[in-house]
């Protein structure tokens, strides 16, 4: 019930943890009681024991040339099939590893290539029941088959003006045939390629946090495809959401946890209706 100006109950931190001070994804494995975190600046996936604290080292580290990891940014766990899925920020790929992979491990599968239309990836989620994979692309969400491999096109796409997604949809999670998405809509315009100015860079972009097109939490069905509005949303001035990026579900208690970049905080929403089966398609009502 953490609320207000509170300190965390524990913090994993320090050099020994091998964490970077830029972490944009993580996932909790309830079956093995482990925490999985990407380190984009070291091209590594770190796995901590669930109760880790302080400057504690990870119990496994996936890193090395055979991993084909490139700026791993987001992770999702398929506990049922024993897999870790990793989305790359700059490498336009999804790498899939065995849950207990360690060291310079080869991925089980890599989705990569021009047919995939994968771009700037900042989030992904896996549905082990329906065997689907959702990927937060630059301006849309791509749906793949869970076991896709190589240069394959997505089987579906959620994007377009009616979705409300304008820029950088971020963390996602599946639940019972629904995709829950933190649609940040913060506008990141990158004038540099590495440390070199791009040729068409002329003006300083507007402050991305002041983008008037605010973000929201959106819920779609896994069968949705195309320019389809979300079936449920959280947004607006009373919600406190401005440009949300992090999202985690607690269906048992009917809660959604959201981190917001502009608020620099973490919000808890009580929305049990979002998890009820009969409300999976509110548009039919």
């Amino acid at each position, binding site marked *: 019930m953490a*609320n207000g*100006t*509170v*300190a*965390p*109950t*524990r913090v994993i931190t320090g*050099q020994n943890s091998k*964490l*970077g*001070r*830029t*972490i*944009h994804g993580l*996932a909790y494995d309830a079956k093995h009681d482990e*925490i999985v975190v990407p*380190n*984009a*600046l*070291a091209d590594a996936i770190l796995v901590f024991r669930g109760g880790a604290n302080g400057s504690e080292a990870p119990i496994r580290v996936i890193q090395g040339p055979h991993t084909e*990891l*490139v*700026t791993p940014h987001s992770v999702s766990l398929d506990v049922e099939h024993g897999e870790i899925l990793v989305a790359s920020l700059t490498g336009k790929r999804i790498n899939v590893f065995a849950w207990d992979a360690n060291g310079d491990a080869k991925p089980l599968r890599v989705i990569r290539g021009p047919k995939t239309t994968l771009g700037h990836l900042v989030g992904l989620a896996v549905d082990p029941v329906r065997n689907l994979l959702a990927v937060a692309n630059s301006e849309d969400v791509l749906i793949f088959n869970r076991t896709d491999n190589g240069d394959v096109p997505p089987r579906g796409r959620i994007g377009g003006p*009616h979705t*409300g997604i304008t820029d950088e949809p971020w*963390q996602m999670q599946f639940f019972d045939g629904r995709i829950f998405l933190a649609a940040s809509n*913060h506008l990141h315009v*990158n*004038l*540099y390629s590495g*440390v070199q*100015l791009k040729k068409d860079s002329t*003006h*300083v*972009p507007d*402050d991305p*946090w*002041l983008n008037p097109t605010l973000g929201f939490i959106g819920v779609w069905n896994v069968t949705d495809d195309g320019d389809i*509005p979300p079936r*449920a949303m*959280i*947004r*607006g001035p009373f*919600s406190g959401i401005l440009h949300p*990026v*992090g999202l*985690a*579900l*607690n269906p048992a208690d009917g*809660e959604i*946890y959201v*981190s917001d*970049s502009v608020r*620099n905080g*973490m*919000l808890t929403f009580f929305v*049990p*209706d979002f998890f009820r089966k009969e409300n999976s398609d*509110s*548009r039919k009502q």
Partner: protein
Amino acid sequence: MAKWCAGLLLLLCLLAPAGLVSFSEYQDRDSKPVPEDIPALRMVADPFPALNGIAVDPENHLVVASDPNRKSLLLYDKFPPAGSSTATAPARQIVGPNTNLGMVAGVLVDPQHHEMLTANNDIEDTVVVMPYDANGNANPARVLSVPHQAWGLALGRKHDELAVSVEIFNAVVFYRREAHGVEAPVRVIRGPKTGMADPHGIAWDELHDEIAVASHGNFRGLYRNNGAGCVPVEPDDKESDTVEIGKFRPPSISVFSTDAKGDTAPLRVIQGPKTQLDWPMGIAVDVARNEIAVANNGDSSILIFDRKAAGNASPVRVIRGTHTGIDHPMGISVDSVSGDIWVSNFGNHSALAFAHRASGDAIPKHVILSAPKGTPTPGFGNPMAVAYDCKRGEILVPN
């Protein structure tokens, strides 16, 4: 370990019919919120400034701190002694949508031109320059676009250049001091020979013509298999068979020649277990005493090295302990007149000044508080993901 429990829930929420409402339509509606505008049940956030970078200007009796939590710059001209428990009133606070301040990190002051500069570390990708007399929702004097993940700033007055450390690209980029808008760097230090790996703090020692850079050690280098093994290549190499080989290197302080550019090896590197370096953040060179001070974030200490230290060198002094008040320090700055070492703490809403010879569990001379003493902080620095640990009933938030 305390467990977080779901609270009793008294709020009824209805799913809204799917349909998007534009921002202007919100303004036109009556006072009732639309169905999807559900208030949060709880929110963990810090209403007080969290201090990141720090810079001291003894000529003008000013300490400037960057605050990524409230997205502001704070200027202090009162330096209370240790023991105060009330928040220190800043002389001025620059905050608001006109300021271009976001997830601000490194900060420096330019007393000659009465300007303060700060690096926006996240997707803002800018350095913001404010005049000394700026206050409130002020417009910047200049805004300069820089590469993504700029962190530390240093000024070279003889070169009239601004140096910016860039984490993800393992580089230091240099601009004209007065650069603004979109301007290409005048030079860049980058490449395998530099040894930089996730650089953060940077300090320009103009007396000795050296630039020091602190690296955390997270390395993503580019390699190409030339048939006889993998060799490092320039980051802009376009060969299709390059691969990235991530590594964890020990943290370090690398010292370059002031005129260094391109793929240049440093003059000296402080690195190794005796150094006690642990996520070194800001660094400062004390030219009068020939020392380098390091805000050692990982173990909440200040390390002081001999300026010419190299290799697996021990610090000459370490300030660490419960009486120091040091709590996850980020920025560090040396008062060029008194020699006092100022450090900004991200962990406890404070900035501290230590006498230049302080060592061990020393009590600071001055304590600036951005919140009442003892106010807890969640420690957020733009949390961009969340996970739920259903076993412990805990919410995991990375920064």
